[in-house]
């Protein structure tokens, strides 16, 4: 196994910040910080339920963009236009059907020791890993 570009310190630190954010949203608002759930709720807008969702998503951009002002944030997207569209459709559809993504199931669900979230996280990790394997080493190899 070849290990490259491993950044353990920034990974742990960034992860801890994500954990603080998720804990804060639960402590303050009583909500699960699942990004697909928060975003998906905007598609069925209910009175008094829109602003906090939109502001959480805006916060994601402010936090990431703000950090980009003080440090280099490398972002490399290699996917072609059709793959971007297909990937976006699958992520949007799949996270609504499975009721969660990396944050909702992965970070919050596992912290609640939810069996559903533990299983979902294993399934999407394996499914994503197999997809990358097929694309890079079977089709692309």
């Amino acid at each position: 196994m070849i290990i490259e570009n491993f950044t353990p310190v920034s990974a742990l630190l960034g992860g801890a910040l994500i954990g603080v954010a998720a804990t804060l949203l639960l402590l303050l608002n009583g909500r699960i910080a699942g990004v697909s759930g928060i975003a998906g709720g905007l598609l069925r807008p209910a009175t008094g339920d829109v602003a906090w969702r939109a502001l959480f998503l805006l916060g994601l951009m402010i936090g990431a963009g703000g950090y980009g002002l003080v440090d280099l944030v490398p972002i490399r997207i290699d996917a072609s236009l059709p793959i971007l569209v297909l990937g976006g459709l699958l992520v949007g559809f799949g996270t609504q059907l499975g009721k969660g993504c990396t944050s909702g199931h992965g970070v919050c669900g596992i912290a609640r020791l939810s069996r559903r979230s533990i299983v979902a996280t294993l399934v999407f990790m394996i499914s994503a890993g197999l997809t990358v394997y097929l694309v890079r080493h079977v089709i692309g190899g």
Partner: protein
Amino acid sequence: MLQSAGALLAGIIFGLGLAVSNMINPAKVLAFLDVAGRWDPSLALVMAGALAVTLPGFRMALRWLQPLIAGHFELPSAKNIDARLLAGAAIFGIGWGLVGFCPGPAIASLAFGLKESFIFVAAMFVGAWLHRAGSRTKALPRSASQRA
């Protein structure tokens, strides 16, 4: 008002974490998922760092009678592992593996103005909407769908 401020604050810290850990970068996420290639284990430590906070944090929060600035906790109630959960997670994983974006990083990356981010996020909302449209059609009572 207070709940909006709470959500904004949590969002900002979350976005900061995505940028600090560079999970906002699809190339880095794909390098984690590519176990057979030049492997970058960083994402596992991001999860570990997050869980190190959420495991004790959630334990404490859920012992409270109610959250600080909302009337009650809004938690998922489903317990059973059904076909929807498994299929949804598998479909999400395929999309994640194709591009390297999951919902949080994709939305956070809009701050950097890359056209790829906008295309992906737009497609993601269309995908979510298709799911809603599909489940709404199925949920319609017989008479209503016949009328339509």
